[in-house]
């Protein structure tokens, strides 16, 4: 098998007595959608934090794009091609949708120590930003302040921002959270279209979406990866059924 794009090796993160990440080794290969699922408190957010560089692991390593990035700050990992969306929508609310994406483009257009030229008239930023908005279906909303977009539109905007730098790996933290059924469907279609072209690490609660989209699924429970495999393997896994799917079913029943 080819070298994985992202590989965590025996990551451990403790908070006091709690082991939030317990010897987790996962990998994401180029072009695949790898979903990370697990009940609340399973340590998904902590794991994501370590991959993005917001949290420093106690031990273990993270390799991305052929480099050890365990100690690299967030912005440097982004430069290597790691982009993310946030669980709680995180856009620049005072800026227009187009400004938001243009800033994301700018982040990958060399340094920004340019003080005099008007960034709003810089076609090197605006043109790719407009294409990015169009790709997620927000073309008509380009000049709307991000704060005035609907929740679903803001999630789409986040995806457009994450894609702006042409990243190797998209880390999507519950992209469907808070979306209506139709919006979710639209998002699933959009992500499906990305499959094969971009690696995605998908953290998602919506099981329908996960089983539709993922090439592989890793199940996290109490900080440990208890299973990893194709959707069918995960569905058939007894431990997963008991620890997670069963629990979920019991919870919704």
């Amino acid at each position, binding site marked *: 098998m080819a070298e994985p794009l992202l590989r965590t090796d025996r990551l451990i993160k403790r908070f006091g007595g709690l082991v939030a990440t317990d010897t987790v080794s996962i990998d994401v290969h180029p072009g695949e959608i790898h979903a990370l699922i697990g009940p609340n408190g399973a340590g998904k957010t902590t794991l994501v934090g370590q991959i993005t560089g917001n949290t420093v692991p106690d031990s273990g390593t993270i390799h991305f794009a052929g480099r050890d990035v365990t100690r690299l700050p967030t*912005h440097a990992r982004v430069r290597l091609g790691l982009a993310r969306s*946030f669980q709680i929508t995180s856009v620049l609310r005072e800026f227009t949708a187009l*400004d938001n994406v243009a800033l994301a483009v700018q*982040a990958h257009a060399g340094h*920004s120590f*340019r003080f*005099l030229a*008007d960034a709003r008239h810089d076609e090197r930023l605006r043109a790719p930003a407009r294409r990015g908005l169009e790709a997620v279906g927000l073309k008509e909303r380009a000049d709307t302040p991000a704060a005035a977009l609907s929740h679903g539109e803001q999630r789409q905007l986040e995806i457009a921002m994450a894609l702006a730098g042409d990243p190797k790996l998209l880390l999507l933290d519950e992209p469907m959270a808070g979306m209506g059924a139709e919006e979710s469907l639209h998002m699933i279609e959009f992500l499906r279209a990305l499959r094969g072209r971009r690696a995605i690490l998908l953290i998602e609660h919506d099981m329908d979406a996960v089983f539709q989209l993922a090439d592989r699924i890793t199940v996290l429970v109490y900080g440990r990866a208890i299973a990893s495999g194709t959707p069918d393997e995960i569905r058939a896994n007894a431990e997963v059924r008991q620890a997670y799917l069963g629990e979920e079913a019991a919870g919704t029943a």
Partner: protein
Amino acid sequence: MATLLASLRSPRGLLTVLVLVLLAVLPLLTQAFDQRYLLSIGTRIVIWAIAAVSLNMILGYGGLVSFGHAVFFGVGGYAVGILSANGLHSGWLQWPVGILAAATWAALVGTLSLRTRGVYFIMITLAFAQLVYYIGAGLEAYGADDGLNISRSRFPGVIDLRDKASFYWLCFVLLCGTLWFCQRFANSRFGFVLRGAKSNDLRMTALGFPVFRYRLAAFTISGAFGGLAGILLANEGAYISPAMMSWIKSGDLIIIVVLGGMGTLFGPLYGAIAFFALEEFLPPLLDLGGKDWGEYWQIVFGPMLILIALYARGGIDSLLGRTEGRRNG
């Protein structure tokens, strides 16, 4: 130019042009009406406006409440004063040294303080400013607490700073330059990063921006312009003293920026005009009651600030109508 003409159509644009034109011809007016004293107020307004615009670069556009900005008055002023006291009178030497010293100090303070947020940032910037204040107060050779009379910077054959009108015009031109830079700065790639980080710095980091570096650069630039204001202030009174960098002056600068409108281009200028106009004219107005209430003008000024803080968040600038999204952001 086209945007300038277009801006004339809005009340804000009209007022801005009016204010700038009035400031441009102020020496002619004060001479015509024989009100020399007004020119000295005007000079102070213009110098403080430069400092306020520079503070606005980090406070307004960067969202970083620096509570020690008057320290740059001090660093710029003392650079001129110390060189002058040692027989180095050339402005060509003094001014670059003053600006460079202020920028260097800003870079140092920024390196340490920008790692903190909120109240801690306020306290650290204040602490560094106090440090320099006490150094100034301890410089026996340069007047210590009492300050020092200095001779003005010399630009032989170019300009004589002792001439009040020439000096005023120089300050005014420098204010225009500062405003021009601030306008470009705010709308540049750099300005977008700075303003984006104010809005959501976690997001900016996740986009790949090393936010700290940009903030440090902004802090340094802001300090450099603050140093320029300090150089002008020292030349205005031909006098330096630690009082020019007391924390009260830092507070006044914040008041001016908030009063005028944070994160707006001309807000700090409006703020400086309003601040000095109130300081100058409120006391005699209150004295009209015949009971010497003028001394307590701040009893009126304080509540005015509270009202602005409560009901006019955008300061004077916001009273001029809504900003069309594209202007300064």
